[in-house]
């Protein structure tokens, strides 16, 4: 009786994570040694992963569409059909809940890499011999002289009760491979085709890396800006006067506020992909807002003395603070219909000309919806004042790692961004704002890739 883990293979020595494209077998299916069980993708390369064992696929731990670190258990194989149920019962609970749903939402899938107990166990036991600076490895060397073994060999050794100190390694630099453990135990050697990892076990660094990003607000704070010295009174400049007028006027608008927490892991992935093409986060947010406004025209509308005015375009204004006081809101015209790269180019040009005071009135006063982002300062939430003449403004906070509980009670770490909509209640009602935010959250969380359309 034995359960064999299928591990996320290393398709490359520099690969840290792979995506499961497709399971070719279902739980309960018979598999033969050498038969393809699933397909893993990394970059532009696909690899069929084969079983290194005759038996049955007992459980899929990581479903298709999810990503897992190299060396992570992604499925279980048992030797006889009778063992399937037992293996399933012992499998991480995530697997069971996911099998019920035929296409689980991606948000849940990703959690597995965090909440599966295996994910946290592997780093502790894998010696990661190739990562020299990893502090986790230090203890390992102290214990048994210098044991260098693959994660799979480690795992097998503990399952089979083999002391790794007594095993001679046949891998590079005497590294102990899974076969070595099996031959030490006198078992027939079943060669794991590629289920064996030979990559530096970078799994360790995944969690800390997320934390690091969250503390970038730990940079020494820059001193706040002041336009005058102590004891002085400084006259408002033209721009500041304009802002003052607008802000006072906004007091006549009956506003309400509604907030939402949006998970941004998918958006961040997509951003990484398009960044080399010059796409900026401002363009991504403006496009996401533009596309959502197209589906929620009420939130793009404004109060006028004649009634509710529906603009002919969706123009997203983005607030920019000016160096010498005041702020300006350059406008990305037709944000719903303009491509990400054009939005990025236009934005760079608008900001440059705004700094040089070269914007035409049309370029900063034609907004139909405003975006205000203070996320770059690490602000987690704030609310904005509605610019007169428009119906709503969205305040965007920083995307920060948070412990998130899913509907099924599982806990994971996700990057979360809080947004807060301020809207004119004469035009936009609570439900309008809420539905807009729900739709925006759906687009960012589940459908970021459609931003490229």
């Amino acid at each position, binding site marked *: 009786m034995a359960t064999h883990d299928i591990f996320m293979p290393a398709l*490359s*020595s520099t690969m840290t994570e792979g995506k499961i494209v497709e399971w070719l077998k279902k739980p309960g299916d018979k598999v033969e040694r050498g038969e393809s069980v699933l*397909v893993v*993708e990394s970059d532009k390369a*696909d*690899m069929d992963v084969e079983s290194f064992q005759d038996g049955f696929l007992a459980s899929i731990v990581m479903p298709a569409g999810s990503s897992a670190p190299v060396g992570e258990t992604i499925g279980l194989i048992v030797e006889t059909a009778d063992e399937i149920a037992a293996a399933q019962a012992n499998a991480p609970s995530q697997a069971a809940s996911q099998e019920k749903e035929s296409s689980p939402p991606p948000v849940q899938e990703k959690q597995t890499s965090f909440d599966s107990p295996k994910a946290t166990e592997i780093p502790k036991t894998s010696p990661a011999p190739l990562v020299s600076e990893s502090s986790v490895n230090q203890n390992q060397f102290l214990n048994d002289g210098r044991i260098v073994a693959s994660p799979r060999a480690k795992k097998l050794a503990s399952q089979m009760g083999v002391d790794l100190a007594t095993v001679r390694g046949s891998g590079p630099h005497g590294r102990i491979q899974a076969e070595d453990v099996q031959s030490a135990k006198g078992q027939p050697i079943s060669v794991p085709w590629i289920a064996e990892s030979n990559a530096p076990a970078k799994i360790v660094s995944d969690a800390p890396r997320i934390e690091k990003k969250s503390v970038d607000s730990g940079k020494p704070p820059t001193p706040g800006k002041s336009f005058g010295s102590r004891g002085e009174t400084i006259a408002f400049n033209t721009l500041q006067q304009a802002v003052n007028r607008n802000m006072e006027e906004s007091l006549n608008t009956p506003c309400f506020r509604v907030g939402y927490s949006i998970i941004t892991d998918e958006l961040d992935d997509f951003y990484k992909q398009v960044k080399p093409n010059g796409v900026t986060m401002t363009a991504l947010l403006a496009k996401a807002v533009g596309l959502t406004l197209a589906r929620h025209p009420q939130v793009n509308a404004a109060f006028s003395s004649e009634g509710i005015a529906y603009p002919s375009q969706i123009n997203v204004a983005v607030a920019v603070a000016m160096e010498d006081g005041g702020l300006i809101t350059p406008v990305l015209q037709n944000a719903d219909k303009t491509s990400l790269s054009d939005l990025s180019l236009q934005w760079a040009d608008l900001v440059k000309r705004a700094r040089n005071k070269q914007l035409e009135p049309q370029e900063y006063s034609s907004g139909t919806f405003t975006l205000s982002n203070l996320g770059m300062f690490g602000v987690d939430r704030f609310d904005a004042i509605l610019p007169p003449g428009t119906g709503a403004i969205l305040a965007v906070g920083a995307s920060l790692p948070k412990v998130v509980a899913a509907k099924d009670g599982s806990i994971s770490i996700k990057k979360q961004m809080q947004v807060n909509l301020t809207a004119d209640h004469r035009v936009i009602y609570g439900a309008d704002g809420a539905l807009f935010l729900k739709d925006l959250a759906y687009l960012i969380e589940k459908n970021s890739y459609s931003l490229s359309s």
Partner: protein
Amino acid sequence: MPFETAWIWQKKFQESLIEKPFSPQAVWFLEHFPCYTIGRGSNTKNLLFEENKSPIPLFMIDRGGEVTHHMPGQIVGYLVLNLGLYKKDLFWYLRELEQALIDVLDLLGIEGKRGDGLTGVWCEDKKVGSIGIGCKRWVTQHGFSLNVDCDFIGFEKIIPCGLSKVKLGKLSDLIPGIKVCDVKPLLRESVQKRFKLKWENI
């Protein structure tokens, strides 16, 4: 050359290499009739038409990467190699394929470069070479495509490689009048050198 035929050839060689690791490896340089191919992990959202209403043949195939388009005037290179004889590292292999293309461009006096974090080969800001491979027990199939003097009209119906606004380029933009037959011999040489191959009866 229809896409299916080339795919069947590759499968045959891949199977024999899996059975017998030292049996002949195979390389083809071809042009296809217009078709779209889409990897197993691809997002069908990158097709700007309904899946069953493709204007030209559409193949769901076993390679990595998103949808792409093949047509006359574009050279596709298929390599069925046993990476067990080279290096069991797919990223290494992708970089080697890119280098083989960059070397060919160099022979033509064009500077080709890699994209930041992306697989493929660019000339200035235009993508001229695309790569997508499949692998089974370290035996590869599929490979690369290089735009020589092809017509890009078919790309309007897809988001190539899933990258919106990727700008596509072809060699004839840089070297007017260049033809597939001018480039093939250079590719042959470059691939042969890079993977230390000995040609037999091609």
